[in-house]
């Protein structure tokens, strides 16, 4: 597959991380390395589960977690029972 955009740059745009310059050349090499797979002729059968497993579903019901306070105590900042974050806009 031919890429028409610089792949590393594309990733940065998606993930909004800093240190772009430092990682760019490493990522170019990694993308080119994993690109080797594209030379293989494979059918487009996507779903894969090891034999004996299939996607399990479970009943949609509420399971109460008794230690809510313990969970909230892990938050960097809370007010009452809400997580506080900096302004969005």
């Amino acid at each position, binding site marked *: 597959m031919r890429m028409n955009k610089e792949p590393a740059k594309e990733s940065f745009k998606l993930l909004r991380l800093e240190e772009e310059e430092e990682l760019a050349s490493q990522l170019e090499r990694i993308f080119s390395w*994993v690109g080797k797979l594209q030379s293989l002729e494979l059918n487009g059968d996507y779903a894969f589960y090891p*034999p004996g497993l299939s996607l399990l579903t479970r009943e949609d019901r509420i399971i109460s977690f008794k230690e809510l306070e313990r969970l909230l105590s892990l938050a960097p900042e809370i007010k009452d029972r809400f997580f506080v974050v900096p302004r969005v806009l």
Partner: protein
Amino acid sequence: MNFSLMTIEEVLQLQEEKKVTPQQVWDFFLRKREEWEPRINSFITVINRMEGNGIPAGIKDNITVKGLRTTCGSRMLDNYIAPYSATAWERLSSAGFSLSGKTNLDEFAMGSSTENSYYGPTKNPWDLERSPGGSSGGSAAAVAAGMVKFALGSDTGGSVRQPSSFCGVVGFKPTYGRISRFGLVAFASSLDQIGIITNNVKDSAFVFSTIAGHDPRDSTSSRVPVPDYREIFTEVPGKFTFAFPDDEVLERAEPEVRKEFSLFINLAKKLGGRGKQVKMPLLNYAMEAYYIVANAEASSNLARYDGVRYGLRERGRDLLEMYMKTRTHGFGPEVKRRILTGGFVLSRGYYEGYYGKAVSFRRALASFMEEIFSSAEFLLIPTTPHTAFKLGEKHDPIEMYLEDFFTVFVNLAGLPAISIPWGLINGLPIGFQIVSRWYNEIGMFRLAYLMEKEISFKNKLIQKEV
């Protein structure tokens, strides 16, 4: 008495006969920990309180134990106290085992050397200048040095078996779905499995039969019945069949490793095995497929570390700046590389060519392995291309990824595998793998035990009493 040289079953027997107390067992391993830990940095958190039978376990620090720190080797979770325990630990704890500590790892289990830990590298107890492998390097080093009777690790692409080979211990990864992933911090969910590190095959089977089995809290947990430990060693294989890879694959290993591996094959034949060499051309693509799938899943799984509900938060003027600063300062370079790669292969325009191709490859690989196991019960293959490398020796990320060449195909296909120590090359341990078809852990343990009895390797680090 040297409890390191006994099996768990033997230690429990002695306790039952009142010949030793749990405290004596605990104190024995504690002395070992005091001797070794300052030198090798196997643990992120140590526990000094004995419980139950006093047989100490090391638990990789990406597996939760309620009330204890679970850092994943990352600054991001430096202050994270787990509010619940992993099923695997709950079952060990119910069976009476004691926790010696949470072991060191590459950050979020991403690495093959334990150098990518926020808490500093673990050193290989066989040679303190060398890596114990990774990512479960803390677990493997702790078992090799005799600080714990066994340890849990996680194996996403070889992270239990590779360090086990480097440290001269037994590393076991079950069929995908056998051991609950509930409480295992997710890296690549379709590949992750909790694995077991021990000094002998019997202990591996003992721990496996204790912690494996269905768990409704893991949606990929298998319902296939787990063999009882007492059933596993009631017989040994008489005649058996095995496959081993041809030279094209074996050439990925260094000449000394190939030489030792041919002796390993000879032993299997001597013990009643009928072996045939097989071509495995798909292995040449397994690394690439693995890094696409694993990183794609990691980029999604690690999105939860955003500084909102738990873990590190760096202040920002607005929400976006907070996210950016938190993730920039919270993650190390390898984790960032993988998130970026994973995000890219899932992005519009590249998804089909990268992720889609890799998932199709998994299916092709699984069919190929099925074909191998239609004519052979086992596949024997090296675990690592060489013995332990020096700390700081590998700078190139791709060079480090290739460390897992012999192990990742097992995870992609969801197979069980065990690495057993074979011997020493220039004074450093090397292990080889037995791989089997899905859910045939019992057959694999039996063959591993049969071979272990004939292998002259002794872990010199645990021979001496303390």
